[in-house]
C-alpha cells in the first residue's frame, strides 16, 4: 500500500456518498465545460487565417437595412481591398419550420464568393456549373450529407422575408474548416423574384490584402459612405459574428454568472462532503497521529482525498461535457450558433483544474482543523 492508495481507499470508503458527490461535481463541471466552450467559441476563437483578412460591410443602422449594389465597385477601389462580394440573407423555409430543417441561405455572386471565402473549397467543375445556372446553388457538403442531398437535386425554399419562393438546383458542394449550414444561390434570383430589391443587397464581404490592413480598410470604407443616405458599418468578420451573438442579450454576463454559480455550488457540495467525512473520522485522525502521522501528513491526506474526488468529478464532467457539446453542435435546435464547436484539450484541462481547486478550497478548513486536533480528545471521540 502507498499513501496514494490510502487516500483513494478513504475517498471511496462511503461509496454511495462518494459517488453522489462525484456526480454532483461532474454535473456542475459538465455545465462549466459547456459554458467555457461556448465562451471560447464566441469570444476567443480567431477562426481561420482567411477569416482574419475578411470584413463585413453592412448598413450602419441595422442588418435589416440594405445597401446599394453600386457600393461594390467603390469598395473595390479602396486601397487594401482584394475582393468584394455581395450577400443577402434570404431567410426562407425548407420543408417546414422544424429546427432540423433550418439553415442559412444567401443570395450572392457566384463569380466572386469563393474569392472572398477562400477557406471554402469547391471543385472547379461544380463551380463552373453553378455559374452557368442562374437557378443553381451550392451547398455545404455537411449540410448536404445531413439532408441526403445530391448534385442535381431540387431544393424548394419558401420565402418568409421575401414574398417569393426559391426553386434551386444543387450544382455543387463546398467544404469549409467548420460546417457552415449554408446554401449559396445566385443573387440575380432575388433581383428578379422581388424587383423592389433590385440594386440592393444585404451586406458585402470583403477580402483585404492582409489582416493588418483590415482596420484601415474598414475606416476608409465607412469614411467613403459617411455622408451618403446609406452609411456603412465595416467590421472584421469576428466582430460581425459577435454582433450577432450580442443580439441574444448579455451573453457574457449570462455565461459568467452560470460559471460562478456552478463553481460555488460545487464548492458547497465538496465542502459539505469533506466536512462530514472528516468529522466522522475524528477518532481515526487521532489514531493516525498516535501512529506517528504528522499534522502535515494528515492535512495532505485529507486534502488529497478532496482533490482526487473533485478532480475525478471534473474529468468525468468534462468528458460528459464534450459528448454534450458534440450533440449540441449537431442539434438542429441550436441553429447555427454552435456549428462546428468542439471541446478542446485545454478546456478540459481547465475544467479539471477548476475542480481540483474546488477540492483544495473546500477541504482546507476541515482538513486543517483535523490536523490540529487534540489526539487525546480525538481518541475519546464517539461517533
Amino acid at each position: 500500500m502507498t499513501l496514494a492508495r490510502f487516500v483513494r481507499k478513504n475517498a471511496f470508503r462511503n461509496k454511495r456518498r462518494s459517488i453522489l458527490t462525484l456526480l454532483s461535481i461532474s454535473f456542475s463541471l459538465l455545465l462549466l465545460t459547456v459554458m467555457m466552450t461556448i465562451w471560447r467559441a464566441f469570444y476567443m476563437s480567431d477562426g481561420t487565417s482567411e477569416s482574419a483578412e475578411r470584413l463585413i460591410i453592412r448598413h450602419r443602422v441595422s442588418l435589416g437595412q440594405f445597401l446599394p449594389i453600386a457600393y461594390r465597385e467603390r469598395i473595390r477601389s479602396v486601397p487594401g481591398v482584394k475582393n468584394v462580394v455581395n450577400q443577402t440573407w434570404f431567410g426562407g423555409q425548407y420543408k417546414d419550420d422544424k429546427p432540423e430543417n433550418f439553415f442559412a441561405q444567401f443570395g450572392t455572386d457566384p463569380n466572386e464568393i469563393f474569392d472572398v471565402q477562400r477557406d471554402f473549397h469547391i471543385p472547379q467543375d461544380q463551380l463552373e456549373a453553378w455559374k452557368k445556372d442562374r437557378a443553381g446553388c451550392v451547398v455545404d457538403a455537411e449540410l448536404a450529407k445531413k439532408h441526403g442531398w445530391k448534385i442535381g437535386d431540387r431544393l424548394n425554399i419558401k420565402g418568409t422575408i421575401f414574398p417569393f419562393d426559391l426553386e434551386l438546383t444543387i450544382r455543387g458542394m463546398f467544404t469549409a474548416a467548420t460546417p457552415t449550414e449554408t446554401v449559396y444561390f445566385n443573387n440575380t434570383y432575388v433581383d428578379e423574384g422581388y424587383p423592389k430589391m433590385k440594386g440592393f443587397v444585404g451586406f458585402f464581404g470583403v477580402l483585404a490584402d492582409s489582416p493588418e490592413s483590415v482596420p484601415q480598410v474598414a475606416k476608409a470604407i465607412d469614411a467613403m459612405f459617411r455622408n451618403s443616405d446609406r452609411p456603412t458599418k465595416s467590421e472584421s468578420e469576428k466582430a460581425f459574428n459577435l454582433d450577432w451573438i450580442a443580439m441574444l442579450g448579455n451573453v457574457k454576463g449570462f455565461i459568467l454568472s452560470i460559471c460562478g454559480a456552478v463553481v460555488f455550488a460545487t464548492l458547497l457540495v465538496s465542502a459539505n462532503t469533506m466536512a462530514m467525512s472528516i468529522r466522522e473520522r475524528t477518532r481515526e485522525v487521532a489514531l493516525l497521529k498516535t501512529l506517528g502521522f504528522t499534522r502535515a501528513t494528515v492535512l495532505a491526506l485529507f486534502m488529497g482525498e478532496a482533490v482526487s474526488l473533485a478532480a475525478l468529478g471534473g474529468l468525468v464532467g468534462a468528458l460528459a461535457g464534450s459528448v454534450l457539446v458534440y450533440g449540441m453542435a449537431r442539434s438542429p435546435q441550436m441553429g447555427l450558433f454552435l456549428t462546428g464547436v468542439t471541446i478542446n484539450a485545454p478546456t478540459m484541462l481547465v475544467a479539471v483544474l477548476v475542480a481540483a481547486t474546488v477540492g483544495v478550497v473546500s477541504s482546507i478548513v476541515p482538513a486543517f482543523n483535523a490536523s490540529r486536533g487534540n489526539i487525546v480528545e480525538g481518541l475519546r471521540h464517539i461517533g
Partner: protein
Amino acid sequence: MSTAMALNTATETKVVQARNVSKVFQRDAFQVKALDDVSLEIATAEFLALMGPSGSGKTTLLNMIAAIDRPSSGELLVLGQNVFRLSDGQSARWRNQHIGYVFQTFNLIPVLTAFENVELPLLLTKLSARERRDHVMTALKLVGLEERVHHLPKQLSGGQEQRVAIARAIVSDPTVLLADEPTGDLDGRSATEILEILKRLNQDYHKTIVMVTHDPHAASYAHLTRHLEKGMLLPA
C-alpha cells in the same frame, strides 16, 4: 547535580522516568486533577500493569508516555528523551519509531485489510515495499494471523482484530508497547490469547510493556502492578 542530569545517567536501564508529574484538566469552570505528583520508573523489558478505578489517571499517564498528552508540571523522560521539548512533527516521528500503542477498541481502519492496517505505520518510513511486506508478514505471523492478511476488520472476530492491532503496534519494532485495556472488549478466551501474545513479546522480544487494565487476571501477566487512585500512584 540537577534533576535532569541525574535522570539522564539512569536512562540506559530506565525506559520511563517520571518525576512529580501532575496533570490538570480544565473542565469549564472546574479544574480536574488527573495525575497528582506521580513519580515512576519503568525499567527496560519491564511488563508493568497499571490498575485503578475509572478516572484514576491510568490512561492519562499512558498517553503522556506516548507523548500524545503533556504534563501540567513535573518531568517525564521516555527512552532518555524529554519528548515534550520536541516539536509536534518531531514527537510524531519519535512516536512512530519508539512507541507501539494498543487500544481497547482496536481502532483499525475499516477500509484497510489486516495487512494494510499493519503496514500503516511503515508508510512513514523509508522502507521499500518489499521490506514493508516482510515486516508486516513477520508481525502478523507473530500474532498468528498470517492466514488473514486480506481480511477487512469487519471479517475478523474481536480477538483477531486486537491481534491485528498488536501487529500494527509492533511492526516498526518499537522499544515500548503501551496497551490501554487491551482485553477490555474481549471474551475470556480471546483475552487470554492477547495476554499470551503480550507476555511473549515481553519475554522473547524484550519489549517494555505498560498495560492499563481493570482486570486482575490480566494484571497477573505483568511482572509488576502499580495502582493509581484519584491521580495518585500508590506505593508498590
